[in-house]
């Protein structure tokens, strides 16, 4: 059953879910991206890859097996038809273009499709984990993040200021306000989320963007 949408994160997750196609092999980052599967339309089933070494990540069902965790280290399950493998093979899949879509959170994205989501110098240096490989290798990179930081500043920038996770790697940016596609000519506003007007998006977006002519601005 699809949950009711009540907060910005759910708006984002629900919109990302509509980007996924039946049978897609998908790798979800920790946090917000893990909410995406809850919003998949009827008849759309995706296969989740977990970078710690398996295909067929599923919800925990029954007893906890301490040897089955997701990429966040949390107890998880595996669906029927899944497979375990080692970290080398896991990243052969990731880097080799065998993952259709990765959905990751972001600290900053910019007009060139650059992404920063792995460190804030002097504050937080958790490490890149598998994120640099994912943005390099997945066929489609979707950034699912809130439009602004806690202090209200835009996270959709002219140019990323934090150390990059990947250069020119982002395909789509989904926030609670809007959906941008990254093109060779910069950002293209594809959609306004329900109830959001263009002025709000313009005001909260540092990056320049064009507007898809197909977009009906009321």
């Amino acid at each position, binding site marked *: 059953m699809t949950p009711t949408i009540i907060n910005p994160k759910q708006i984002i997750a629900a919109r990302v879910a509509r980007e996924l196609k039946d049978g897609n092999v998908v790798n979800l980052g920790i946090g917000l991206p893990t909410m995406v599967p809850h919003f998949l339309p009827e008849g759309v089933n995706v296969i989740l890859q977990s970078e710690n070494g398996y295909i067929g990540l599923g919800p925990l069902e029954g007893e906890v097996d301490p040897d089955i965790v997701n990429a966040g280290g949390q107890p998880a399950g595996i669906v029927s038809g899944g497979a375990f493998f*080692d*970290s080398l093979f896991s990243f052969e899949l990731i880097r080799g273009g065998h993952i259709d879509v990765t959905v990751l959170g972001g600290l900053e994205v910019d007009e060139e499709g650059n992404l920063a989501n792995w460190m804030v110098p002097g504050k937080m240096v958790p*490490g890149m*984990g598998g994120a640099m490989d994912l943005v390099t290798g997945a066929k489609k990179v979707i950034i699912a993040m809130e439009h602004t930081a806690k202090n209200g500043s835009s996270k959709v920038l002219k140019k990323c200021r934090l150390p990059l996770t990947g250069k020119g790697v982002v395909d789509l940016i989904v926030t609670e306000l809007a959906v941008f596609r990254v093109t060779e000519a910069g950002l293209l506003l594809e959609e306004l989320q329900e109830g959001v007007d263009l002025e709000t998006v313009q005001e909260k977006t540092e990056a320049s963007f064009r507007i898809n002519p197909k977009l009906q601005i009321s």
Partner: protein
Amino acid sequence: MNKITSLEEVSSFLKDGMTIMAGGFMGVGTPQELISAILKADVKNITLIANDTAFVETGVGPLITNKRVKKVIASHIGTNPETGRQMIAGEVEVELVPQGTLAERVRAGGAGLGGVLTPTGVGTVAEEGKEKLMVDGREYLLEKPLRAEVALLKAYKADKAGNLVYHRSARNFNPLMALAADTVIVQVEQLVEIGEIDPDEVMTPGILIDKIIVNGGYVS
């Protein structure tokens, strides 16, 4: 050659200043008893190669917490606040490596390669200090092999020849590290006779394994 050994004997392979690889992903697939053996053996100034530094009290985390580590090469240190604290205090050196690149470097070390060319990290700080090569119009980083003096593995099952079977997502870096160290020690949950593991099901062949510890310290 009897490969079954005791935790006490494991200490004889450990020395101050050595480079140690340990399997595991946030502690899952980490040989916890072998990590304890390091703590007990009182070795220090270790260079540790592992996917992450796990948690303060589990996985390879206690090696950090107990200040046995001089340098860590890992893809992620975020779940163990002690690593970050010691890094900022200048007590431990941290080399962060993208996870796929870490796997490739360990494999290169075990497989006799001089390195691999990966697109991962191009245009990021991960390229600092590395040679960049263009191949057929695309830019790659030259990533060099990693090896260790000792690798500490965790497996589900071993036969007495050291043939290993891993369980679920506890496999992770273990099979790679089995090739990339001078001495390879494995902690297993279950020990069986030679011939009891079908040759198609062996995930790491016994020729790579030097010593086996059975969970709970059982010595055959």
